[in-house]
């Protein structure tokens, strides 16, 4: 973990393109992707993940039209706007899906009284 990460951040999932942290102090999930840094509530995080999941990457891959070269996504209640190429959509998907699984694992552990290491 890099030293400039706040102490309240817990790593949820990491790929070589980005990291998802959870901050229990602010009840936010933090998405680090390339050099961006976006804080989202659990609800907005889930909604953004669904936005990324439902991008039609088949069309992006097959279409020669310029408008299908990139996908523009804005996480809910956020100033940021991601302009993503096909590869970036796939990388972001991988990161968000991994984070989703870890959050689900945490939920399951909590349901039986355990917790992921602090």
């Amino acid at each position, binding site marked *: 973990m890099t030293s400039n990460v706040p102490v309240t951040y817990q790593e949820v999932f990491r790929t070589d393109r980005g990291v998802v942290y*959870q901050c229990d102090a602010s009840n936010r999930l933090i998405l680090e992707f390339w050099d961006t840094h976006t804080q989202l509530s*659990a*609800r907005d995080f*889930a909604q953004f993940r669904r936005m990324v999941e439902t991008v039609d990457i088949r069309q992006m891959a097959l279409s020669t039209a310029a408008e299908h070269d990139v996908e523009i996504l804005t996480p809910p209640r956020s100033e940021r706007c991601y302009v993503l190429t096909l590869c970036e959509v796939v990388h972001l998907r991988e990161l968000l899906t991994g984070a989703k699984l870890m*959050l689900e694992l945490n*939920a399951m552990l909590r349901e039986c009284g355990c917790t992921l290491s602090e």
Partner: protein
Amino acid sequence: MKDLARLRTSVKESVELALNQQIQMEMISSSKYLAMAGWCDRNGLDYSAGFFYKQSEEERKHGMKLFHYLCDQGGTAYSPEIPAVSQEFDSLRSVFEGALDQEIAVSDSINRIIGICRRENDYATEELLKWYVREQVEEEYIARRCLELIDQIPADQVYYLDKKLASVTYDGNPFE
């Protein structure tokens, strides 16, 4: 680590998704029944028209019940997209056949969602959906009974048939 999603809502994402689909389905039912009511109305079948106007309202209420439930539990309910529905029908029989088809599709959908609730251990939502299970038993019964009457009543007694159809109720409902 906190479970942020659980703090926000008791409804899991898969259940939320399924309930939103069900909201849409109820609203589509409402729209279909309204089209059926309109067709009956302009073909002089006033009683059947009244029956479908009422059904249309009921379906909207079914959707709203789920909408409020999701909101109250901290979930996200979406106002659904309603695709175009058919406005024309070949006969009164085909109207009621369409109604039965729709009710069967709704029953199947409710059963599928209860399966999801069980997988997710969401007994609260399952409890709510039991109301829909009972409702569907009644709705399917009524649609089938109407089709029987259409078979039984001679085709030239349109006024009598129309009146009779609108009066069908499920008297011996074992769930009541």
